[in-house]
């Protein structure tokens, strides 16, 4: 019984009853609505006055004229007039407090009091002084803010970036490289990444030894490649070849099968896709993610059908597979639909118990990423606990050869890499990967897109969200790239771009016509009439949008009220009943 009359229940009843009293106006005007309306005015005014006292007048005025005892003691103490031991008990007189006040606030107090003269018949002109203070100040503020905060930025936004985005599409395709700026950023990220690794290596001699010869050569090669970017245009340059190989890997990551096949074939022998590959339905399924199977399968096909592509295949699918081409071909021939690395290890005669635990998805992904030279290692390793890393390391210990030692070295480094270095590596990878994805999709826009890429890939921006994005991307590449405007076929992209340009043109026309309409107060006839009609059309469209949003807002408010009522259904029902009875009695009384 006690719970029935708790403060909470009373509150709930008050909420429901006051809500329904106001809603009763929808049926017809009635004394209960009027009562609630007046109570609201009273409550809100009272609330405002109390808040103004506690939140403004007391702290911002009274406490400055008559500082609290503690504040005076603090001031005395800071001025060296109070010893620390005397601090807690030092008596502060009223006079002393007044003396420590900020005298300028007497002026504001006086102005505030003058404001009250508005109600006097004779002296109400005195209230103009504080009014002039406030209105004058706001006039000045308004000039600066309208210019600084609205006029200039809005004019700027209308004038620049007309097409929205600049495209670098066709040139990219033939050159196979990134625009200089992006390239620079990427190179910097890679150099940073490598530098971080080197530094981490340098900090620990045993780790440096573990990195071994295999890594040294690779690092050197990479750094040389990065340094000598000018030779990128040369058709047979090493960097360009490197890029080709990277493109294959990146396309595989993207999961864009057709695109990947096209690239691979174009890169390896210029063969049309249809001639060299089976139809997608005829592909065998395996335990691995589809793109990985596809990589191996396509590589095998190319290997078998295009002698010119053999070198490239090794480049793409296992640069570090220190194997005879025949062994690699056999491994990659994919007879029973098993993970290629498993076969590889088996074919080399390693006992099963010395092999990594392939039931772990992360192990498989790691192995396959290494195989396809996509280089997602930092990300995959980031998901690993140091313990798992050491486990895999131990399992791989008996392996030998360039590829294995490289893997070992990387794992060793990662197992002990400081967090910051890991983050930097993560970031570098993201930069590398994102830029590659965009390039492969033949669309790299400047401006906002560049900014977005930079935002998502700069080393200090690797957050859990970007890692989530990465996962989302792996699940649904096309959907993920949509916000970046990278969707669909090239034709569709071109259409999107035209729509974008048209829409931006529309904004310029709309803004000019609208401003015209406002500023020519003479009669709108002739050319001026046409322009102002266009201006009106745009204004109407924007009013339509505002109207739609207004409806949305109002309905939301009603939803909120109903949600509150439904939070206490019994109480709401009771209140409704009470109100209906009261309304009925009231209407009968009125009739009498």
């Amino acid at each position, binding site marked *: 019984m006690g719970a029935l009359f708790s403060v909470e229940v009373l*509150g709930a009843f*008050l*909420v429901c009853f*006051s809500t329904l009293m*106001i809603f009763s*106006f*929808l049926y017809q005007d009635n004394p209960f609505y009027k*009562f609630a309306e*007046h109570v*609201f005015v*009273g*409550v809100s*005014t*009272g*609330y405002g*006055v*109390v808040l103004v*006292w506690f939140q*403004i007048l007391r702290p*911002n005025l009274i406490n400055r004229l008559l500082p609290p005892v503690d504040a005076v003691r603090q001031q005395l103490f800071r001025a060296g007039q109070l010893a620390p031991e005397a601090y807690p008990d030092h008596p502060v007189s009223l006079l002393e407090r007044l003396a420590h006040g900020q005298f*300028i*606030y007497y002026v*504001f107090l006086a*102005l*505030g009091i003058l*404001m*009250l003269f508005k*109600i006097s018949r004779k002296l109400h*002109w005195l209230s*103009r*002084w504080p*009014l*002039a*203070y406030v209105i004058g100040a706001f*006039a*000045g503020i*308004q*000039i600066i803010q*309208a*210019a600084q905060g*609205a006029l200039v930025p809005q*004019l700027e936004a209308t004038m620049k970036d007309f097409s929205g985005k600049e495209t670098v599409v066709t040139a990219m395709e033939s050159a196979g490289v990134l625009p200089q700026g992006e390239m620079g950023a990427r190179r910097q990220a890679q150099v940073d990444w490598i530098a971080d690794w080197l530094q981490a290596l340098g900090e620990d001699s045993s780790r440096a030894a573990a990195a071994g010869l295999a890594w040294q050569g690779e690092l050197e090669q990479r750094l040389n490649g990065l340094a000598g970017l000018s030779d990128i245009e040369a058709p047979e340059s090493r960097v360009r070849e490197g890029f080709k190989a990277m493109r294959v890997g990146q396309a595989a990551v993207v999961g864009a099968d057709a695109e990947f096949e096209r690239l691979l074939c174009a890169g390896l022998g210029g063969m049309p896709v249809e001639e060299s590959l089976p139809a997608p339905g005829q592909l065998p399924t395996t335990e691995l993610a589809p793109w990985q199977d596809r990589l191996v399968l396509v590589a095998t096909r190319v290997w078998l059908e295009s002698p010119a592509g053999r070198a490239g295949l090794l480049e793409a699918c296992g640069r570090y597979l220190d194997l005879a081409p025949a062994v690699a071909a056999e491994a990659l021939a994919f007879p029973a639909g098993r993970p290629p690395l498993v076969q590889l290890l088996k074919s080399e005669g390693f006992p099963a118990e010395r092999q990594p635990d392939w039931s772990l998805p992360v192990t498989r992904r790691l192995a396959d990423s290494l195989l396809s030279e996509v280089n997602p290692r930092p990300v995959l390793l980031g998901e690993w606990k140091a313990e798992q890393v050491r486990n895999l390391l131990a399992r791989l210990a008996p392996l030998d050869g360039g590829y294995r030692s490289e893997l070992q070295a990387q794992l060793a480094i990662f197992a002990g890499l400081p967090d910051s270095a890991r983050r930097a590596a993560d970031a570098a990878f993201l930069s590398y990967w994102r830029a590659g994805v965009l390039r492969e999709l033949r669309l790299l826009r400047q401006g906002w897109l560049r900014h977005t890429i930079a935002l998502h890939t700069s080393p200090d921006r690797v957050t859990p969200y970007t890692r989530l994005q990465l996962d989302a991307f792996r699940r649904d590449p096309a959907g993920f790239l949509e916000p970046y405007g990278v969707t669909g076929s090239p034709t569709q992209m071109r259409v999107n771009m035209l729509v974008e340009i048209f829409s931006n043109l*529309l*904004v*310029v026309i*709309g803004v000019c016509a*609208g401003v015209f309409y406002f500023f020519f107060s003479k009669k709108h006839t002739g050319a001026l009439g046409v322009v102002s009609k266009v201006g*009106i*059309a*745009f204004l*109407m*469209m*924007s009013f*339509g*949008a505002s*109207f*739609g949003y*207004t409806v949305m807002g109002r309905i939301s*408010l009603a939803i*909120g009220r109903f949600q509150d009522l439904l939070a206490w259904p019994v109480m709401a029902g009771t209140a409704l009943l009470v109100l209906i009875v009261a309304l009925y009695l009231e209407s009968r009384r009125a009739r009498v």
Partner: protein
Amino acid sequence: MKKEIPLIIAFLLGTWMILENFLTGIPWVSTTKEAITNGGIVIMAFTYVLGIYSIVSVNVARIKRGQDVVPKLALLAALALMVGLGFWRGIAEGSPFNWLYLNLYVPLQATMFSLLAFYIASAAFRAFRARSLEATLLLGCATLVMIGRIPVGEKIWSGLPGISDWIMNFPNLAGKRAIMIGASLGAISTGLRVILGLERSYLGGE
């Protein structure tokens, strides 16, 4: 005296507010600016006292004349209750003042505003007619925006949110930006008129 002093005050304050924008990093400018802005906050707070006076006087007069006695008394009682509780027990969480705010003020105000949802529905039925090209544009945009912003719209056709976005980000942007540019120029010119004393309506009659 009655007009000159306010005009001088407005001129000084307005000019100061413009100039201080260009005088950054000078200590005395910062101190003055701090005092002027905080003084303004205090002065504006006194208008609440005026507000309470006018509400009480208007309602007391009505009660004396015998008009709407019960609601007017309720208004004064509610006001007195809030002020009394506020000063008696403070405004902290868990205080009676806070309790009344949450259980009376919040539902009353929120419901008052939500009534508009119903009137807008009635207006949609009776008043919104595609009588001219302009009205048709308005209604068309409103309808597309309304349907594109809700889950059902997305269910009907996945392209609807895109269309709604397009309307918001291009035609609406153009219209709103034109208004914004116009309003900013207007604000600058009225600001100047106030500072220069050409606009004196705030001084009232006489």
